[in-house]
């Protein structure tokens, strides 16, 4: 993590390490959780984040090898909690987008890859480190190539309510 100045330069002198990893499962050091990628061929991959303005905390997602984590940092980038939400993923990251404006405020859309297909799901109770869980639908959002791809998925929410009755003849 490094702050970006107003002229779009990055202040590297105040860069901080948020997460480190170790070859063995180790306890959490203060402010640096050690994630569990036992094998050396798995790398820290695709950090994504969003800011929860209601609780004033950062939600950082990270995939390490097959494991996907959600980490909670306060405004000063001190670690509050973290939780592993998935352990069957590829090493592709876990982007999240809160959908509070259109659905339940505690859910965040996410995609997670399985093979070359990318599944669409959501993180339930995303504001609670104890209860956050990944709910995957059966469907696939899109398919990516074997290359290093970037997919931009734009969802157009449309909420429809169909009411049907034969009460009025």
């Amino acid at each position: 993590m490094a702050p970006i100045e107003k002229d779009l330069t990055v202040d590297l002198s105040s860069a901080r390490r948020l997460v480190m990893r170790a070859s063995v499962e180790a306890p959490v050091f203060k402010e640096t959780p050690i994630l569990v990628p036992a094998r050396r061929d798995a790398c820290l991959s695709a950090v994504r984040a969003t800011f929860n303005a209601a609780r004033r905390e950062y939600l950082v997602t990270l995939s390490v090898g097959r494991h996907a984590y959600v980490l909670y940092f306060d405004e000063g980038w001190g670690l509050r909690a973290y939780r592993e939400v998935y352990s069957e993923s590829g090493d592709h990251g876990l982007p999240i987008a809160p959908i509070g404006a259109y659905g339940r405020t505690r859910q965040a859309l996410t995609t997670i890859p399985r093979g070359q297909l990318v599944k669409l799901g959501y993180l339930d109770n995303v504001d609670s480190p104890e209860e956050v869980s990944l709910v995957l639908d059966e469907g696939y959002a899109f398919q990516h190539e074997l290359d290093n791809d970037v997919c931009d998925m734009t969802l157009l929410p449309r909420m429809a309510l169909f009411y049907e009755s034969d009460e009025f003849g």
Partner: protein
Amino acid sequence: MGSRDASPEPSWRPGVGFILLNVKLTGRLVIALPDFGRHVVLQGAYEQRLDSRTYYYRLRPIGPSTAMLLRVVGVLREDMKVVSVLEPYRLPIRDLRGDVGSPYVVYNPFGPCYYLLFLGERTLRCP
């Protein structure tokens, strides 16, 4: 901004560092980031909500072909400055040096400030 030979910075090596386009469009900010040797342009936009003073930041990753199209259309002008913001091998903090990219920008509206999240770790080559 997708072509490698367009960088005026001699210290910038393709595929290792990130570049941040110093672009001040009207309320828009374009960031170009090479990731594993392939350029990824993130186009973000400040958008002001009508009901409050909170801003949110929306990133849209687009590929090199779209970046070329933006260059042709004129969103990315020729006079826009390309600034190398960091190279993972040359970070001042030793623990953060590495060859893994995957940058992201997160915005705190209460700061207000942006943070660049990146991975710096010396690992084996990942597919």
